[in-house]
């Protein structure tokens, strides 16, 4: 028990509570060893949580299916339609883009569910009772989810990248540089995992699965779709900005094939997403502390 409580014999007579002896806060003393909890406990708890629901297996399963399946298909189509010169000067790893773009929807869904499903099921009240430090719960959820999302994306994007490099090696493309490899695997994986973390935070803010998923899918797709219909020349600047900074375009930058020649390039998208996630994290944390569960 806590430091200021002397060990107590079990209270003998139930009725004489007013005369209960032994210090200011007498009562039962449990034989279970008392542990001062820390983030490690919350991490273990969140790891059990994320692996013990079927939605995790479903979303990650579909994610792998999309990334690897579409990767294989794209590779096969490109290989069948190219001769020894057609890919010269291209980054052959860039064909992993399509699978990841679709697959990111699964990661976003899982991210939202990690937080929002606690609210829809009422589990959050149990969670908050077990761990009154709300900041710790949010941190543990974020770390566990980010790790799961990063490892899964890295494994699948790495697999697809190797697949493409072996399939398309005869189509005239240069062998990818180390930097290109790094961006096409670690870079995109960090980006997708951050996108998922952003969804997790939106889920914590909105507290509603369907609403948060809609917001995230809208945030990914709407800027591009809206920009497509900006025909007026006076809106050209806005249109360009939307094209350059839309999430699919930023994802493309990891393969050096954004929608436009300008806009974020290299590792820029990662820093943009990192900054955005940090701001939203601060907001989600502040709301979590302020609101009633």
């Amino acid at each position, binding site marked *: 028990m806590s430091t200021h409580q002397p060990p107590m014999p079990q209270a003998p007579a139930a009725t004489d509570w007013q005369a209960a002896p032994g210090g200011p806060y007498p009562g039962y003393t449990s034989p279970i060893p008392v542990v001062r909890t820390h983030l490690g406990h919350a991490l273990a708890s969140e790891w059990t*949580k994320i692996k013990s629901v079927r939605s995790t297996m479903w979303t990650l399963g579909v994610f792998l299916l999309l990334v690897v399946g579409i990767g294989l298909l794209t590779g096969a189509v490109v290989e069948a339609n190219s001769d020894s010169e057609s890919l010269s000067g291209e980054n052959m790893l860039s064909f992993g883009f399509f699978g990841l773009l679709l697959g990111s929807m699964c990661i976003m869904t899982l991210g939202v569910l990690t937080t929002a499903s606690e609210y829809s099921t009422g589990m959050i009240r*149990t969670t908050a009772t077990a761990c009154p430090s709300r900041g710790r719960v949010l941190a543990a959820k974020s770390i566990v989810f980010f790790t799961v999302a990063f490892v899964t994306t890295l494994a699948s994007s790495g697999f697809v990248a190797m697949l493409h490099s072996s399939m398309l090696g005869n189509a005239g493309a240069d062998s990818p540089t180390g930097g290109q490899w790094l961006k096409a695997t670690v870079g995109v994986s960090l980006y997708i995992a951050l996108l998922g973390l952003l969804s997790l935070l939106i889920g914590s803010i909105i507290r509603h699965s369907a609403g948060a998923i809609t917001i995230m899918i809208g945030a990914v797709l709407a800027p591009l779709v809206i920009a497509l219909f900006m025909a007026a020349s006076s809106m050209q600047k806005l249109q360009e900005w939307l094209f350059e900074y839309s999430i699919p375009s930023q994802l493309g930058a990891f393969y050096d094939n954004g929608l436009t020649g300008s806009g974020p390039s290299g590792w820029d998208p990662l820093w943009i997403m990192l900054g955005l996630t940090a701001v939203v994290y601060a907001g989600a944390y502040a709301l979590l502390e302020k609101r*009633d569960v």
Partner: protein
Amino acid sequence: MIELEGLTKRYGDTVAVDRLTFTVRPGVVTGFLGPNGAGKSTTMRMILGLDHPTAGDVRIDGRHYDRLKDPLTYIGALLDAKAVHGGRSAYNHLLCLAQSNGIPERRVAEVLDTVGLTSVARKKAKGFSLGMGQRLGIAGALLGDPRILMFDEPVNGLDPEGIHWIRTLMKSLAAQGRTVFVSSHLMSEMALTAEHLVVIGQGRLLADTSMADFIRQNSRSYVRIRSPQRERLLDVLHEAGITAVQAGGGALEVEGDKAERIGELAARSGFVLHELSPRQASLEEAFMRLTADAVEYHAHSRPDPAPQDWGAGWKGA
């Protein structure tokens, strides 16, 4: 021990909990009673730090809930049976709770056994009946073998066997020296388990007494009389200054604890009595009268509206 001091919760203009001050002590079952919407659950949520109080303070053994380093070994709570992710098995639900407080994993199997859910431990919680969900919630509360236990309407959805089980459980937990705080809107249920009572109505404290005192103060006692010479008995009682009223089944009822006096009167006059029984109105009735008074008090405590010309006429009538 749970100490509340002027605890208040407002939602906009509505006052859900109004300056509650009381202490829940170890070693007894303390019943927390009030009609639906009285603020019982809100109070319990504030004790657990789920809701922030608008004003006032609540401490667990002298500390705020969010300062507890090992909350589940300190206080176990069943708030509502649905605070569970339905897709998770009972075992994994309890396991993630245990891990978050560094409780050894063997406790999960132990509490599942205590509440009788061992056979469905690996089944998903969404397939559970209300009673099974309630048992799972109780298992979660017992997980850390805590000093303080809090149950919000624990008998809801339980079958008679389950209700009997939870009564016995609560009493044995209190007998071990733990603080047991249990809410209910059923006075009859509390009468069987609680030794101490805290009654609230519309967020206000109405009573904070021992169960025995509460019964003494709030229950109406009366004497029930049946006699073949009813009319003449009525006359004699009237002459003695005792008011009897006709009750159903040809019986008479006299307010107060006057059985001895009535018996002596009847004997002196040579009446035959078929029944002379001192009785007490049910606790449920006492509880309803208490909370009804609170409603009345609330209505009267409002300032009278300023007299208006058009309403003045009929108001006096």
